[in-house]
């Protein structure tokens, strides 16, 4: 438990053995160590405590750098050209610089989540007290906060206990960030190790944030049947006054719901959300609705459907205020991290702020008090809505046709488009009165509006898309399962049997942002492909929202078709970005529950366990942010492979295994101490996929682990081979690397696989009790 000072002064004390006068006892810190699990070797680890483990992983998964930029311009020595074998003025080469940028990105990401956690616990302690009990899932969870237990070695019970962990995470971010200063770290591998470290700290920060909000706001607690909530442009009845919330940190949005509830206005005002705040708000109240992932911001704002916008923090468009002004929508900024240049009005009377917003005297106000945000937002929106009358800047069709005719075909728009959408062709078609191509682009558009900025004629091309897609989008409504939070211990026990018997071939986590190359559909398709095949599919954040945005012929989304439990064919939304540690936590709990491994401050052993045994793979198909980088880094250190979509190569480096190098794929057999060849399982730690088909095949392949039972391996291979054949049209060329003995061969593919084994001169190997750590060898004597 947490720090607490204690001073006792005793004038006179008589005991059996002594009489003491003027005794003064002061105690710096009281540590509740009634937790019987022994503390492992790395409580509150420093930046280098787990460096040996990192190097083990980096030895096998060597960094492969893809410099996004040839120069470094971080100090005034530069800018320095680092191409070829050149070094910068500070002595750094391209490998180190690339890994330094990776570390920098991970530090930004980890800082963001940790600051988010810090803000939440600060706010929640202020409101509910330090002794507010934490509760992640009642009776069905014995191992609460698995990441914090594993990393920090503490078992938080109340809000105040979280402070120690968040303080540690803050310290790590500072140290790691400092290593990126000119003239500090020089080795690329050490930069990588620090990126892993800060990624691990990020997992703690996120876990704390979610644990705090689940406990205090009473979000669904590890609930497989978390409610289904509405999502889409058409989810809200926008005839009503509509508040749009954007961001990640939910207290100000909670303030809105609370005020509506208090004033009995729930149902009279719509509250819709974009990005993680939206997910978290539906975890708080099913009256809230979700517009969609991050990419929907401009689409919604410009449509004029929102009568008031409340922004908090993270992933909010920097021009949200300007865009809102164009449609006469007032904005309330509520986070110190995102003040938008507005005057701080936290201490001003609510009435004054309301009238300023309603009369349009200011474009927005800055209020840090969530309760005041609630009052001002609700009271303002009711007065603003009739005045605005859903004013929109979406152009009429004839304007688009005229623009199409005036377009010079310079192609600047398509050059600016991150996904190469055929905007020039759409303009040509528009000139003929055909808006269909624009409507198709609308479906695929990530909403960056770089085309608008690029157009020399200043045509609002993004708005053209919105107009063209309006008929479809305005009526669109989908069902998404609200964020359920953690995975129950019991659920993990239930899948033990099916996993060893091969009935569940793996765990697929679809996470991250919405920077998709071709729309939302891919995420939904990938999720369903694996749910159908009885994998466990776990989702979070924008990916969880995108997966809801496809319906089958009966009008059902995957959340309506598949169970929400951690089970074969389950489709689980754990929650917002900060819910990601529930996925890592499930893997950690496997080690505790099945092998009874101590998890307390025992990171290396548990990461080794997970890496060699738990067939989990992460896919961040639309990864965009620095937060996505640090989330991925947290999984790398646990040894869980991560795949990113095509834009992910811009993170500048991959961690790729070399299946052709047999020497890279040996583990110790903990039973005998022998080194045993396991084949490339899993082949990569971080890689990119160009197409969804490539991603699907890669996921199936990366689910294999050295410990797979023959039943498990045969099932995993079945899916890998089947998917490879389906999407590439041929048998994969590396099947022989994954067959350890003939029992591994998929039962319906025996003759063809046997033929390959013969051609490749395959030899039987044994299934070890795998570990990369010599100290885990159990052989005695």
């Amino acid at each position, binding site marked *: 438990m947490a720090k607490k000072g*204690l001073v006792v002064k005793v004038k006179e*004390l008589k*005991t*059996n*053995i002594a009489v003491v006068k003027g*005794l*003064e*006892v*002061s*105690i*710096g*810190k*009281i*540590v509740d*160590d*009634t937790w019987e699990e022994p503390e492992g070797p790395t409580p509150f680890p420093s930046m280098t405590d787990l460096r040996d483990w990192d190097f083990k992983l980096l030895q096998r998964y060597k960094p492969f750098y893809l410099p996004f930029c040839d120069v470094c311009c971080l100090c005034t020595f530069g800018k320095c050209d680092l191409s070829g074998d050149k070094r910068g003025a500070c002595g750094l080469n391209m490998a180190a610089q690339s890994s330094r940028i990776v570390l920098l990105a991970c530090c930004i990401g980890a800082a963001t989540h940790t600051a988010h956690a810090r803000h939440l616990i600060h706010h929640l302690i202020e409101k509910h007290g330090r002794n507010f009990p934490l509760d992640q899932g009642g*009776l*069905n*969870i*014995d*191992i609460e906060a698995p990441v914090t237990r594993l990393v920090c070695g503490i078992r938080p019970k109340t809000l105040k206990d979280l402070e120690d962990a968040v303080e540690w995470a803050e310290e790590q971010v500072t140290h790691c960030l400092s290593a990126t200063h000119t003239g500090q770290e020089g080795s690329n591998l050490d930069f990588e190790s620090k990126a892993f470290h800060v990624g691990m700290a990020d997992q703690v920060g996120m876990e704390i944030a979610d644990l705090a909000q689940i406990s205090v706001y009473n979000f669904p607690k590890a609930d497989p049947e978390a409610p289904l909530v509405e999502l889409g442009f058409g989810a809200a009845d926008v005839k009503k006054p509509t508040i749009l919330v954007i961001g990640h940190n939910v207290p100000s949005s909670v303030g809105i719901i609370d005020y509506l509830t208090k004033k009995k206005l729930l149902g009279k005002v719509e509250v819709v959300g974009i990005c993680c705040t939206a997910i978290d708000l539906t975890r708080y109240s099913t009256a809230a609705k979700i517009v969609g992932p991050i990419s929907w911001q401009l689409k919604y704002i410009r449509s004029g459907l929102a009568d008031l916008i409340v922004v908090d923090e993270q992933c909010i468009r920097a021009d949200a205020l300007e865009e809102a002004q164009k449609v006469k929508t007032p904005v309330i900024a509520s986070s110190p991290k995102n003040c938008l240049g507005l005057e701080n009005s936290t201490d001003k009377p609510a009435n004054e702020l309301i009238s300023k917003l309603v009369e349009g005297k200011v474009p927005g106000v800055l209020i840090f008090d969530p309760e005041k945000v609630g009052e001002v937002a609700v009271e303002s929106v009711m007065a603003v809505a009739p005045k605005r009358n859903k004013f929109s800047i979406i152009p009429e069709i004839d304007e688009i046709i005229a623009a199409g005719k005036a377009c010079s075909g310079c192609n600047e728009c398509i050059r600016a488009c991150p996904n190469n959408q055929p905007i020039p062709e759409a303009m040509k078609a528009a000139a003929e009165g055909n808006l269909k191509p624009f409507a198709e682009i609308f479906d695929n558009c990530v909403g960056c509006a770089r085309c608008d900025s690029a157009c020399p004629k200043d045509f609002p091309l993004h708005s053209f898309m919105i107009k063209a897609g309006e008929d479809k989008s305005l009526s669109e409504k989908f069902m998404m399962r609200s964020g359920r939070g953690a995975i*129950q*211990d019991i659920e*993990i*026990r*239930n899948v*033990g*049997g099916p*996993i*060893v*018997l091969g009935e569940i071939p793996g765990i697929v986590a679809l996470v991250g942002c919405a920077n998709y190359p071709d729309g939302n559909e891919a995420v939904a398709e990938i999720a369903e492909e694996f749910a*159908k*095949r*009885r994998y466990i599919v776990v989702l979070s954040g924008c990916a969880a929202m995108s997966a809801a945005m496809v319906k089958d012929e009966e009008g059902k989304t995957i959340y309506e078709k598949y169970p929400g439990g951690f089970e074969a*064919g389950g489709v689980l939304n754990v929650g917002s970005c900060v819910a990601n540690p529930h996925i890592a936590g499930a893997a950690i709990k496997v080690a505790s*529950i*099945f*092998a*009874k491994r101590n998890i307390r401050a025992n990171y290396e052993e548990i990461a080794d366990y997970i890496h060699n045994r738990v067939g989990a793979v992460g896919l961040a198909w639309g990864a965009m942010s620095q937060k996505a980088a640090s989330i991925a880094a947290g999984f790398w250190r646990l040894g869980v492979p991560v795949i990113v979509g095509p834009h992910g190569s811009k993170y500048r480096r991959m961690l790729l295994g070399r299946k052709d190098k047999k020497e890279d794929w040996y583990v110790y057999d*903990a*039973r005998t101490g022998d080194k045993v060849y396991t084949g490339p399982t899993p082949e990569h730690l971080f890689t990119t996929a160009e197409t969804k088909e490539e991603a699907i095949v890669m996921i199936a392949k990366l689910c294999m682990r050295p*410990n*797979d*039972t*023959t039943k498990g391996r045969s*099932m995993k291979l079945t*899916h890998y081979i*089947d998917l490879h054949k389906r999407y590439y049209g041929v048998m994969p060329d590396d099947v022989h690397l994954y067959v350890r003995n003939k*029992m591994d061969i*998929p*039962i*319906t*593919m*025996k*003759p*063809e696989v046997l033929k390959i084994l013969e051609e490749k001169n395959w030899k039987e190997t044994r299934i070890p*009790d795998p570990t990369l750590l010599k100290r885990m060898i*159990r*052989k*005695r004597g």
Partner: protein
Amino acid sequence: MSMFEDIPVDVGVIYEGERIRRNNMQVELGGPKQPAKFELVRAKKMDEVEDEKVTVIGPDLKDLPEGGNVPFGIYIEVAGKDIEEDLEGVTERRIHEYLNFIEGIMHLNQRYDIWIRVSKKSFQKGLNSFTYLGKVLARLYKSELPFIEKIQITFITDPAKVKEMYDQAAEIYEARDAKARGMKDEEVDTFYGCTLCQSFAPTHMCVITPQRYSNCGSISWFDGRASAQVDPKGPVFAINKGDLLDAEKGEFSGINETIKQKTLGSVDRVWMYTGFGYPHTSCGCFEAMAFYIPEVEGYGIVDRGFNGVTVNGLPFSTLADSGAGGRQVDGFHGIAIEYMRSPKFLQADGGWDRVVWMPQSVKDRVKEFMPKEAIANVATENDVKTVDELTTFLKEKSHPVVQRWKEATVEAAPATEGEEALDGIAFPVSTATVAAGGFKIIFINAKIHAEKVIIKRDKPKR
């Protein structure tokens, strides 16, 4: 090169979970509307089986009414030098798995409950004869279960013939069940070990006997026998039970030797029928846990499906954690529900005489195998909520454990947080450990200023 080139539809594991809705079905075979339907595997002599022969008695698939529902039977005869009657049941259960691999076939249930649908789409692709199903089954059986050297398969849609064979099959099922239920550990020389879970719990091994199922509830002695035959080097293997060292507790020299070898000595002795001493280890996926309640000297049982707290105030998740991970922990004993139906169930501890509490849902599942008195004597969550209430309940029912109380001595006084521990402050030592009823307070650098006070719970003495 594929095994199934001559089959008009795809065959693969990925079709296993396929659901065929009424609108998409060509025909339904068996199912709830048919009183008589069955699938049956019989072991035959080599000369009684014509290998890979497929026979259809009654109309074939293409001649069955579209959208209709017909009586149905599958009769499979297998032969091979290692085939024995004991393997019929496990072989039969594979029909479900293998038929589901066929694209456009949905097979549910087993034995006299089978329910099969053929999809329109697959029918249109050419899956219009039972011969194809027969070919797939024959090839998969021979490839997966090498003890099958010859196999012949008969599909029956003729109502009279289905009825006739259904009656025979029912007798065979009954006889098979009676034999399995009556089979005793004493009657076999071979038990089976299963180390499948070692992939996650490296020190756990299950011992499967006719009267003790695997902890997960998925592998019977018969399953073990079949798996060990198919892949003797695999994770399910034969254990020569060796000498009987203790009949009451269930100690066998063969089990001890095998478990010592398979767990590298971390476990070297197992008593099969008790939760104390050297109990069978618990992995992580046991279906239920028998947990000892010292206050009443009896066992509570709780299964994974029970969401509340048990009578001692702890939920399954906490109790399960006390025994898991391939360890032998006194009084925390992972078990399969099926084991509760066995006469050997906790035999050395007193069996059902020692069970005092279980969830109603578990009681309902095993009721018919419980002794009559136990049904009334064992409390559920509907009867009692606390150990005190349980004590009263047991007294009222004169539960056999009450007898034991009379001999027992009174437990030590409950732990308290004692301020008297502060006495320890006076000691001018750099680290002082002070024991106070149930707690240990350690003062670090406590001469005047203690930087840190650690409060630890004392290990309860057993």
